[in-house]
């Protein structure tokens, strides 16, 4: 509750700061203060279960340690994102304050998605999450790629909004209790009500679109590629895990009981997501685009949470969110500083900028899932959950084989960083890399390792 309130309020604060505050550093400072406040407010609620202001939501929001700790992860990652990339956000255009405001609104949407208890809030939450993103994608107005990405994102996004609403309509229609509350959906006594089944598939499809699962992933590479890199970072991480959380929350609470009925669909989606994400990434030359495909591939792994739908899966989801977000945000923060986004652009970075090289390597190792990184632990939890579920063990085998493929493209970057000769010029815009930036990168890298060694640090919150 605190999270929704504070993010909305701070969004408004940031909106006005765009008008009244002229100094860019003040704007970013304000944003950082805001996210810290948000984090603290959320943490207080996590500890006490008492929001600062109690609003009677008529049970439309459900707050528990699980979704609060998830939000803590989200806000923590956003804090990291702001710290690393605030200056780059301000560089996108002249509407710095507005960008931050939109990001806070997105956070509000994520908070809604994390705590919703009716389909209405889910819908509104997802829209609040999406609409600012359409804008952020197109925020680099002079850049035709950014324009194009925004339009593509918007058109496809609203199309699938329609699909989702159709799904909701059918669920409502098929639900004899005539309710939108997700835990109040009566699924039928013997056979599944066909209306609910249809609605379920439609919802599955539309949420798959939001988390860019195949075959509804087509928007992802283009949008991630076209959007300003700093927002790609945000979209690919925080927003994506937010959508995932909504996805899992909805399907766990409303359709968890008939899990087996839609597991086959999920198998298809998961496998094709892993396959397409990993295999297409192999051929990319642009690192940014490669990261887009990699985010599809990572989504494939996160889908295991839905596939398994057990305690371990929820733990894994939180862990995965943190691990994946920190690594990706960190890597994108480095990518933004690069002069050349192709893989060759990274050549020799290890020699010219060892700190960036080492941290980038750690981020990539984590994304690959090498042990002792958070990425490994999260993948491990996902696989463990999937195996615990017991069905379709072959999916796990397919997943690990495709994870080996993922090593192929992540390690191409690592190779460029360490084993290739640098081009004549420094591959990194040195003047933009400050000491504090490096320090933050190191901290994130350490965070990844710490989470890799002690994932309990995060998971124990869930059972707080």
């Amino acid at each position, binding site marked *: 509750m605190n999270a929704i309130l504070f993010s909305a309020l701070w969004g408004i604060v940031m909106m006005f700061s765009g008008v009244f505050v002229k100094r860019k550093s003040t704007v970013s400072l304000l944003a950082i203060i805001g996210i810290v406040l948000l984090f603290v407010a959320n943490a207080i609620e996590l500890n006490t279960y008492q929001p600062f202001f109690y609003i009677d939501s008529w049970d439309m929001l459900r707050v528990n340690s699980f979704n609060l700790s998830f939000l803590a992860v989200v806000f923590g990652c956003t804090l990291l994102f702001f710290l690393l990339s605030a200056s780059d956000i301000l560089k996108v255009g002249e509407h710095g304050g507005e960008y931050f405001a939109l990001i806070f609104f997105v956070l509000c949407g994520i908070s809604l998605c994390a705590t919703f208890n009716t389909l209405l809030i889910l819908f509104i939450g997802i829209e609040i999450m999406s609409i600012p993103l359409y804008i952020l994608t197109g925020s680099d107005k002079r850049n035709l790629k950014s324009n194009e990405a925004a339009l593509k994102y918007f058109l496809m996004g609203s199309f699938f909004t329609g699909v989702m609403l159709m799904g909701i309509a059918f669920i409502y229609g098929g639900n004899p209790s005539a309710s939108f509350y997700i835990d109040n959906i009566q699924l039928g006594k013997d056979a599944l009500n066909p209306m609910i089944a249809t609605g379920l598939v439609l919802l599955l499809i539309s949420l798959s679109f939001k988390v860019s699962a195949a075959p509804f992933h087509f928007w992802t590479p283009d949008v991630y590629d076209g959007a300003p890199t700093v927002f790609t970072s945000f979209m690919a991480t925080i927003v994506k895990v937010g959508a995932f959380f909504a996805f899992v929350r909805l399907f766990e609470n409303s359709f968890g009981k008939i899990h087996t009925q839609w597991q086959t669909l999920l198998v298809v989606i998961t496998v094709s997501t892993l396959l397409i994400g990993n*295999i297409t990434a192999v051929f990319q030359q642009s690192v940014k685009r490669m990261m887009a495909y990699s985010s599809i591939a990572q989504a494939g792994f996160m889908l295991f949470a839905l596939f398994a739908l057990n305690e371990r899966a929820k733990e894994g989801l939180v862990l995965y969110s943190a691990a994946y977000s920190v690594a990706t945000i960190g890597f994108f923060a480095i990518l933004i500083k690069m002069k050349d986004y192709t893989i060759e652009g990274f050549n020799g970075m290890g020699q010219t900028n060892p700190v960036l090289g080492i941290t980038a390597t750690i981020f990539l190792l984590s994304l690959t899932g090498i042990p002792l990184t958070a990425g490994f632990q999260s993948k491990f939890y996902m696989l463990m959950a999937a195996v615990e579920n017991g069905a379709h063990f072959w999916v796990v085998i397919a997943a690990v084989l495709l994870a080996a493929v993922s090593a192929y493209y992540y390690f191409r970057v690592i190779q460029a960083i360490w084993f290739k000769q640098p081009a004549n010029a420094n591959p990194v815009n040195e003047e933009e890399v400050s000491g504090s930036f490096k320090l933050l990168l190191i901290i994130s890298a350490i965070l990844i390792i710490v989470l890799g060694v002690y994932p309990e640090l995060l998971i124990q919150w869930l059972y707080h």
Partner: protein
Amino acid sequence: MNTILNLAWLIPVLPLVGFIINGLGRKSLNKGMVSVIGCGVILAAFVLSVMVFLQTKSGNTINAHYFDFIQLSSFNLGFEFKIDQLSSLFLLIITGVGFLIHVYSTAYMHEEDNKDFAKYFSYLNLFVFSMLLLVMGGNFVIMFIGWEGVGLCSYLLIGYWFKNTDYTKAANKAFIMNRIGDLGFLLAVFWLIAKVGSVNFDTVFSAASLAKLSATDITGITLLLFVGATGKSAQIPLYTWLPDAMAGPTPVSALIHAATMVTAGIYMIARSNALFSMAELTMTIITFVGLATALLAASIAIKQNDIKKVLAYSTVSQLGFMFIALGTGNYVAAVFHVLTHAFFKALMFLGSGSVIHAMGGEQDIRKMGGLHCHMKITSITFLIGCLAISGIPGFSGFFSKDEILVGAFSVHGYGPVLYSITLFAALLTAFYMFRLYFITFTGKFRGTHEQEHHLHESPSAMTIPLIVLAILSIIGGFVGVPEALGGHHQLASYLSPVVKSVTHHLSHSTEYILMAVSTLLVFASIAFAWMKYKNYQAEGNATGFGKVLQNKWYVDELYDVVFVKPLMKFSAFLNNIVEKKGIDGLVNGVGKAVQYGGRQFRLLQSGQVGLYVLLMVVGMLGLFIIQFFCKK
């Protein structure tokens, strides 16, 4: 009273010590020291061997277990020696002849560098050590250790002049051919382990163990052991390494490739006579392989012009005789021939060494001739060797060969045939040995003037061993005078606790006739050789059948075509096609498939929103179909 036998372990250890001292001290020791150490340890071992021999002669034997080599719950193998009549006889030969050859080497190798000299002696000592291990081993594995060890030393000594590519090739060939044989030995050992659970001689040869073995087992094991023997003792098909092994220094040829190592196969079969006696098929095979080898090698020897090659083929041929003896169950005769052969063949090799020494390294007999005038001792001792090997009555070879011939004759069924073919091989022996003698020592000198000027008798360190061996070649046969000639065959009775001597059913009169026939024919063939070669003139390469013989029946070439080249081609095929294109191609193919898939999937991402939406709608269709219209 058995203190001597308890000290038997010193016999192999002494040469080992010599090896270590000479090997490590090769830079610091001078030649004198090296010689003293090298020969001294062998002499000491010889003295010990004599003492051991005396013990065993009075019937004392020992099975000494020193430490556990491999000890498992299901299998145990000790580091153990077995000293009995058979092994102590071999000890005598090895250390005795070995000592003489060591002494001879001090002179023969004197021109080598200090370092190489020491290296040479250390190898030689190591060889003696391995050979002793071979004959003293109390089980098949210890025997095998020595078995491979002598192979190794042979390899090292053949390749002693390692800068010469041909020599190193010969060394490799020796080692690899030996290894092929060793393989048979090894498999036989495994077979024994699998069936009997032990490789200890006493255990294996005990009645209880033998009862565990089926007829197939016995035939298999003995055949495999025999394969081992063919490798080491240069029998068909694994004999080709021995002539090539003449690349090594001549004393090495004398020691390893005439007197000791090559007789290991005979020793091993004699040692396992309990097994072999039960395997009739194997015995027949041994007989015929021995016969074929004796003939083949003898035929080749006729046309060889390299003095050492003639001797080498002669060795192969003589080993064939020994195997004929083994195959006919006449183990004592085989051992007897080993003994006499050790004397006269070592003698001849050393003699040839003396010649080569005098000729400044020349080995081609066509360039020699009339050496008798220049080096009388060598010539006379060599002649004694020739007489001995040809089987002139009174010389040692006569007795041992006679026994083999008699044994062959007495074989049930095809005895006379066997006898006549064997006799024919013996006649060839006499012929080519005297051909060699006449070409080398009689007639006119055919070499260059410098060589002629240089001709001289060898130093006493070389001649004394020659003389000693010549004496032994004469008298060595008297340990086995057959009953027909009024002897008691002391050797047979000495070996009787270990090796059953055959009691052949021939009457004395038959034996006399046989002896007379063979003696007459031998004289005839010597006379033929005299006729042919008393005035030998250097001739070009032979033609026709002679050429085939000169080229050793083209066996090397045959092996090359049948085994070596196909193997290399096959390997190259594996390397270039199967490995690179096949397996690695498959592995890379997976990578390529992934890349190809990446390229294809990429094309879907055409940038067209319309297409994207279409594909997504198709995806929706697919999911609906899966959900509602696919059987669960």
